[in-house]
């Protein structure tokens, strides 16, 4: 039954893709599927499942509270995004889009329910493949294909870490379950923990893998809303939280996670603050916020990370939907041309709530979860807490800048909001507001207890400094929104260009050189061999004509010629295979190679007529050679 969480959306997605239909039908069927999955996720708490996949690997699924919290979040976000997509996206390809989003969610649910590394790997890569199809959804456009491939290849490079973790776990324990991960020690534990960390940070768009999130912006807005909130990116943070008990035993794991997470939180914040493209601003922000979650895991508070994940999912997808509505109204994602709050009052109001939550302003949900992360970091050290507070300040600045630029100033435009779009947005904003109840002690204590983790206690000074940083960030954001900065020269502080010039192009050049080497040099083995064989065969046939023919004229000579040619060719093949490469290198390819190959082939083909007696002659020749070998060797 627990597997239904994964396969139900996949099957429904395929059915919707195949059957198509009107916008209303697509939206309704997608929303119904999302609600069924949501109901299953709520009802299946604590369930487990197994599937005898192969002799060596049994797939395991489980739904402990931490997983269940995410398993519920995923279809909830999907519900809102499907409603939005059915109303917002282009009609051409809409069934494919909705269908793929459902399949994508199914893959994510498989990651969530996984209780062993093979199941995790399967879900993990299905999510990656779906992201390829979704980012490349608008395949007619020039940018879609390369961006989709870039995103998939970069995240798959990170997946190698998961492969390594799996291999190390099975090699050490013979099993792949999460419990086996806990039984590791020594280098296999280190390899597994850091392998998983690499896989997680690549999916989560952390430094240095962050640029794929920017390229993912070439997909439709609905895809961004889903990919950045509850799926794909969230998978990275989720898996670290889920496996924290097993991984935290590895030396250096916590520091590495906090280092990567907070570096991304600050750099991503800077990237977001400088962006003038609405979706790219949000993409930088996603990296930064996910970095905070990973830092919280590193500090030893996975429950806090998951709570921030849930809050961020609702907030961030709401902001993407708002950006999409603004894009439809103005035809561009450029923040400097906007200011359309008056034309889209409902959107503007809801975006404001989500932006305040992202800015971590109390009493909104994001404020609570970010404060909890700062408190968690305080437990690690003051240094980490300071970095977390700085990242929070940056978050307040870019969130403010986003909302004010987009909806602040008043350019009246003839536009409107579709009901489906608003419905999706409303679901998410209602979620954000509901989650704001986390500020209540009763609520967050209960939530942490259920998730099975402690809440960190913080100092009053830390709280005040963090609030001050947020306030300062909001003011800075207001200023930035009015300043009208130019668009940054380089994507992701030049990281994208580094990939292009430091990895992709050099690799392509290497591959082309390898291909030339393959055609020119490796291929000399057969050509050289053929040439030696041919000259030997020619020599043999001369001997045959002049010497043997003279001794035994008559019918037998033809067969003898064949036999000697066969022996010669066989021996030449043996010697030539070794000598061919060197011989060719010193004696560059003569133009007659092709002709000579042909002659050798003709000789050999004559042997290969399929007639039995020719086989016997070859057999005899081989026997002679084998006997020689035995004599020499013995």
């Amino acid at each position, binding site marked *: 039954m627990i597997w239904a969480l994964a396969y139900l959306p996949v099957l429904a997605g395929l059915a919707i893709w195949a059957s198509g239909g009107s916008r209303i039908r697509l939206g309704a069927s997608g929303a119904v599927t999302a609600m069924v999955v949501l109901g299953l996720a709520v009802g299946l708490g604590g369930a487990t499942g197994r599937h*005898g*996949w*192969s*002799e*060596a690997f049994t797939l395991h699924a489980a739904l402990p509270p931490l997983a269940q919290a995410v398993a519920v979040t995923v279809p909830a976000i999907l519900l809102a995004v499907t409603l939005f997509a059915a109303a917002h996206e282009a009609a051409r390809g809409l069934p494919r889009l909705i269908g793929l989003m459902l399949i994508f969610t199914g893959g994510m649910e498989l990651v969530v329910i996984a209780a062993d590394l*093979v199941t995790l*790997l399967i879900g993990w*890569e*299905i999510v990656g493949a779906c992201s390829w199809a979704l980012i*490349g959804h608008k*395949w*007619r*456009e020039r940018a879609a*294909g*390369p961006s*989709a*491939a870039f995103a*998939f*290849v970069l995240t*798959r490079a990170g997946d190698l870490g998961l*492969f*390594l973790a*799996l*291999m190390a776990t*099975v*090699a050490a324990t013979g099993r792949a379950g999460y419990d086996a991960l806990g039984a590791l020690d020594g280098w296999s534990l280190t390899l597994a923990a850091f392998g998983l960390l690499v896989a997680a940070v690549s999916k989560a768009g952390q430094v240095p893998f962050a640029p794929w999130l920017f390229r993912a912006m070439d997909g439709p807005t609905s895809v961004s809303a889903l990919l950045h909130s509850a799926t794909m990116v969230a998978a990275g943070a989720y898996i670290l939280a889920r496996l924290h008990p097993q991984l935290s035993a590895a030396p250096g794991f916590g520091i590495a996670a906090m280092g990567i997470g907070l570096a991304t939180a600050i750099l991503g914040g800077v990237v977001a603050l400088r962006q003038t493209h609405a979706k790219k601003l949000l993409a930088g922000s996603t990296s930064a916020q996910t970095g905070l979650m990973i830092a919280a895991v590193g500090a030893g508070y996975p429950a806090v990370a998951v709570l921030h994940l849930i809050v961020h999912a609702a907030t961030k997808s709401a902001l993407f939907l708002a950006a999409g509505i603004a894009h439809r109204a103005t035809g561009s994602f450029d923040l400097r041309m906007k200011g359309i709050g008056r034309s889209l009052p409902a959107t503007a109001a809801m975006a404001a709530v989500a932006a305040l939550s992202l800015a971590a302003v109390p009493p909104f949900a994001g404020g609570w979860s970010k404060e909890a992360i700062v408190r968690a970091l305080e437990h690690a050290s003051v240094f980490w807490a300071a970095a977390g507070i700085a990242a929070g300040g940056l978050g307040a600045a870019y969130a403010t800048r986003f909302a004010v630029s987009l909806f602040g100033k008043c350019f009246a435009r003839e536009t409107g909001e579709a009901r489906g779009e608003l419905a999706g947005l409303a679901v998410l904003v209602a979620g954000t507001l509901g989650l704001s109840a986390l500020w209540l002690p009763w609520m967050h204590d209960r939530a942490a207890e259920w998730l099975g983790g402690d809440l960190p206690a913080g100092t009053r000074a830390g709280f005040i400094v963090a609030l001050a940083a947020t306030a300062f960030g909001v003011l800075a954001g207001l200023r930035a929104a009015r300043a009208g900065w130019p668009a940054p020269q380089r994507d992701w502080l030049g990281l994208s260009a580094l990939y292009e010039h430091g990895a992709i192009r050099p*690799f*392509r050049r*290497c*591959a*082309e050189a*390898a*291909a030339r080497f*393959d*055609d020119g040099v*490796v*291929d000399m*083995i*057969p050509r050289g061999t053929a040439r030696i064989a041919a000259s030997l065969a020619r020599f043999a046939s001369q001997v045959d004509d002049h010497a043997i023919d003279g001794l035994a004229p008559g019918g037998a000579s033809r067969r003898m010629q064949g036999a000697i040619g066969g022996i010669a*060719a*066989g021996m030449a*093949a*043996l010697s030539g*295979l070794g000598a061919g490469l060197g011989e060719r290198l010193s004696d560059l390819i003569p133009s007659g190679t092709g002709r000579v*190959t*042909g002659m050798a*082939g003709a000789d*050999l*083909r004559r042997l*290969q007529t*399929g007639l039995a007696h020719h086989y016997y002659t070859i*057999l005899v020749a*081989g*026997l002679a050679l*084998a*006997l020689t*070998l*035995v004599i020499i*060797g*013995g």
Partner: protein
Amino acid sequence: MLTFAVLVPLFAALLLAFVPVGHAAARAIATGAAALALLALVVTWIGGGEGFRAVAEVPWIPELGIAWRVGVDGMSLALALMSALLFAVTTAWPMEDLPDARAYYAWMAFLAGVSIGLFVTLDLIVFYVFFDLGLVGMYFLIGRWGHGEAQHAALKFFVYTLAGSLLILIGIIALALNMPELTFDMRAMIGSPPLAAAGMVPGLVFLAFVVGFGIKTPVFPVHTWLPPAHVNAPGPASALLAGVLLKMGAYGLIRIPLQMMPETFARWALPLAILGVVSILWGSVVAFAQDNLKRRIAYTSVNHMGYTVLGIAVAGSALGSETARELALTGAVVEMIAHGLITGALFLIAGAVWQRTQDYHLPNFGGLAGPAPRLAGVATLAAFASLGLPGLAGFVAELHIFVGAFGVYPWLAAIGLLGIVITAALFLGMLRQMFFGVTPPERAGFADLTGLELGLLAVLLALVVLIGLWPAWLLGLVDAGGILPLAGAEG
């Protein structure tokens, strides 16, 4: 029953060679023969059993210990089933404007009989004869019905692999001579491996087998016959070359050096594993640089067979735990089946593209997802299967190989993993160039796959999905534990 599976296609070939029938009838006869062979093999499969089953023996040259011996274990039965299915699909594949269609289908049927025969025989001489007759069949299919420099490519293929098979013959004879009693019975040699002592002779015999089978598999650096043969071959022949003929090399590597010379194999396992990893990386890097659709797919065969060779080398290493070696061998055999189905489908797709455009140059394509959504769909599925996406067959194989290899040669497994990133890049690049972006004007009238083409590809890809979701049935059939030599006990 197995003899029946071999003789039916050969009889059909004979029939087609001498009885003048039309194109449609010839196709029906050849397809029917392959389907009957498949049916016979399925019946054998249902019969079940352990070890070598459905064994039959008819003496041929008793003085030399040569006989018509047939029988299958799980591995050879799985390979024979896959081959028969691939033959049924490729002969049914619609070929328009086929000159001398009757001869084409005769050679296809001949090749089917020979290939199935190779996998079901238990006599080394018969094995060798079928190994060479396979070359003859493929030589004519490429040379007569290919395009471009078909003659030259066919000749290169033929001579190169024939050179390899001569080495195999020498090795086979050396093995037989070292048996207590002269025989070419595979079971006898597996039961009491000859040439067990250390020394130069077993090493040389092993080398002869590795080079001979390595050419056929193909392994770096003796793979250069493969790309021209594929590029110039007609689509179905390419599918068979990649799907069935390459497997003969890998199958031979398991059946003869691994099972009959386990101790020598264990001594040389590390170099062979390195060769496998080099093939994985070299095949994928060179494939990445190809602009020609078929050359690109052809080089991915070098990559995929590299996974297989790595798995085989690990299985015979006599190092690590038996579980790890069994995993690697399971993976190697599943890789052979998966590669046959997936690459068979990819080459049929390439054939469909050629029939419509007479072009393989990838930059000349683009935006075909618009006019040809069915083609785009099956090509995407096949490409993702080939790059090892979970839920599809290739992943099952690669997972088992890598997990097994890590237990024996961790560094090699880690380096080999890079191959899966490069294959992802090259297949996504191929899909983008074919199907994304703007359709060039000269491709405006591109016709989508017909219902028959789609149906045939769907048969192959459905199996790929089935193996990916629920591989247990295939792994149970293959039963790698039964193939694994017991050399580990002796160290």
